[in-house]
């Protein structure tokens, strides 16, 4: 058995979701190879070399692969597929975009977004926005899998001695070209991996009011998230959305502010260790999943919370 993990990166940095995919792969078999497709990815390869679980890195390095265009990347994976029993990628928008193409080109039914590995052919995955968990068994000889990054700890980057094998590949397409990417840069921790997340909903009322959350996020070193309602209303950009069709987060502390708690939002955060809900509607369903609920007007509560955190920091210092 040999497993191929498709690395997600931005040509410079390895995304932590890749480390989670490597951990998932290690629960199936020890023979793990990582495929890095990109342009000038030496830093990414060097990082992967240091991971003990990784046996080999296959580097397809060419300027035409600088952006992960699915139509361009999937034929590379298909051409290598013969050597592996399992091909695994993170269930991020990167992995979701590419892997189903690989699956159908190999005539395999993909197993999406798994949260647990029972055996090399049996997996657990959430369905219905996480309101049910299905245990499923794949009968395809080759398994094409995407994993939910928050369900697998990132592999540690130490003790590795993997070799890098350069591979030339000629895939060319004319149907799709990249124009640009509008990334939201922030000094705060990344939403998907932050230890603390504070999210706002429609209750915030405007994009200006998200400044109240940003202030608290800075004091807690937290990432800022949002409900779909807040994103749809234009208060904050789409990459902040937590939920069934947004990101899944599993922080130690999740603070939901002005979020009622629709099942689609709960799907993205209900595995958090501690949940705090702040809402003016006492009947809001978010209180049913919260460890600590605070009923009241967020415009009174958030400034108070900010000053309480200041007090805490002063005492600690």
């Amino acid at each position: 058995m040999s497993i191929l993990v498709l690395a997600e990166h931005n040509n410079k940095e390895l995304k932590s979701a890749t480390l989670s995919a490597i951990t998932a792969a290690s629960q199936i078999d020890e023979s793990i190879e990582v495929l890095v497709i990109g342009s000038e990815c030496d830093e990414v390869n060097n990082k992967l070399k240091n991971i003990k679980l990784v046996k080999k890195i296959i580097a397809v390095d060419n300027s035409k692969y600088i952006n992960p265009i699915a139509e361009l990347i999937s034929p590379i994976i298909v051409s290598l597929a013969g050597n592996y029993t399992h091909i695994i990628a993170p269930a991020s928008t990167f992995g979701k975009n590419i892997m189903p193409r690989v699956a159908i080109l190999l005539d395999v039914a993909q197993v999406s977004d798994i949260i647990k590995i029972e055996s090399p052919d049996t997996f657990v995955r959430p369905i219905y926005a996480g309101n049910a968990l299905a245990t499923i068994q794949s009968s395809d000889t080759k398994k094409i899998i995407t994993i939910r990054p928050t369900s697998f700890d990132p592999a540690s980057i130490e003790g590795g001695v993997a070799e890098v094998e350069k591979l030339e590949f000629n895939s060319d397409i004319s149907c799709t070209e990249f124009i640009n990417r509008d990334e939201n840069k922030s000094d705060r921790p990344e939403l998907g991996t932050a230890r603390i997340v504070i999210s706002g909903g429609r209750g915030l009322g405007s994009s200006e009011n998200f400044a109240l959350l940003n202030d608290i996020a800075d004091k807690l070193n937290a990432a800022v998230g949002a409900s779909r309602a807040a994103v749809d209303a234009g208060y904050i950009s789409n990459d902040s959305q937590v939920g069934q069709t947004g990101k899944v987060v599993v922080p130690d502390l999740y603070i939901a502010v002005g979020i009622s708690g629709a099942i689609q939002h709960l799907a993205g955060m209900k595995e958090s260790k501690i949940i705090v809900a702040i809402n003016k509607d006492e009947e809001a369903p978010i209180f049913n999943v919260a460890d600590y609920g605070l009923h009241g007007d967020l415009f009174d509560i958030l400034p108070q919370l900010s000053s309480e955190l200041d007090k805490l920091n002063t005492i600690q210092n």
Partner: protein
Amino acid sequence: MKILVTVKRVIDYNVQIRVKADGSGVETDNVKMSMNPPDENAVEEALRIKESGKADEVVVVSIGEDKAQETIRTALAMGADRGIHVKASQEIEPLSVAKILEKIVEKENPKIILMGKQAIDDDSNQTGQMLSAKLGWAQGTFVSKIDLQDESVIITREIDEGLEKIKTSLPVVATCDLRLNEPRYASLPNIMKAKKKPIDNYTPETLGVDVSLRIKQLKVEEPPKRTKGIMVADVAELVHKLKHEAKVI
């Protein structure tokens, strides 16, 4: 130019899901069913393209049991021109759905296929990508904006890092995000009119597609329940609890 739109009948997004006691699946008897939400965005977008004069026909296809016809009728009432129902009483995996749709595409020759980015029942997020690869067409996933030019499309995609813009040639498969548009409601006269619009019928067998399952569902369980916590009186108590009880700040 013809646009093909795919729609799926799923448990309504507002329904609280109940897992069957015997672990064989989720309860669907006497449960409200609706069109998969991002499929509504796909129908809406197709209608807007047609209304702008850039397309002349919108064809809606659904795969599933008899009642999938209701979902097709909903799309016809929104304004689609005609329907195609591929009748199947058993479960159909995304891989087989893509193969069935490939056969429909051969018959219909659309230039654009619009689909929802994922179905909210199995949350697989596969079919559009599979269909695109199978057809060898351009792909645009998680689409929040479509700008149709003469022989190409500028597509804005919602990705984890923010927004990505790509340009694709035609034909193209695009999977729609909920933010693409605001789907319209069908008016009563249009609901009446939709009853007269034609729906063609096929089955996987008549299309020659093997739909045997590759993935076996062994069991379905409820996720672990969170126990409801406590209400705190004020911010000071909240911060104290987070600091000393939960120890997370």
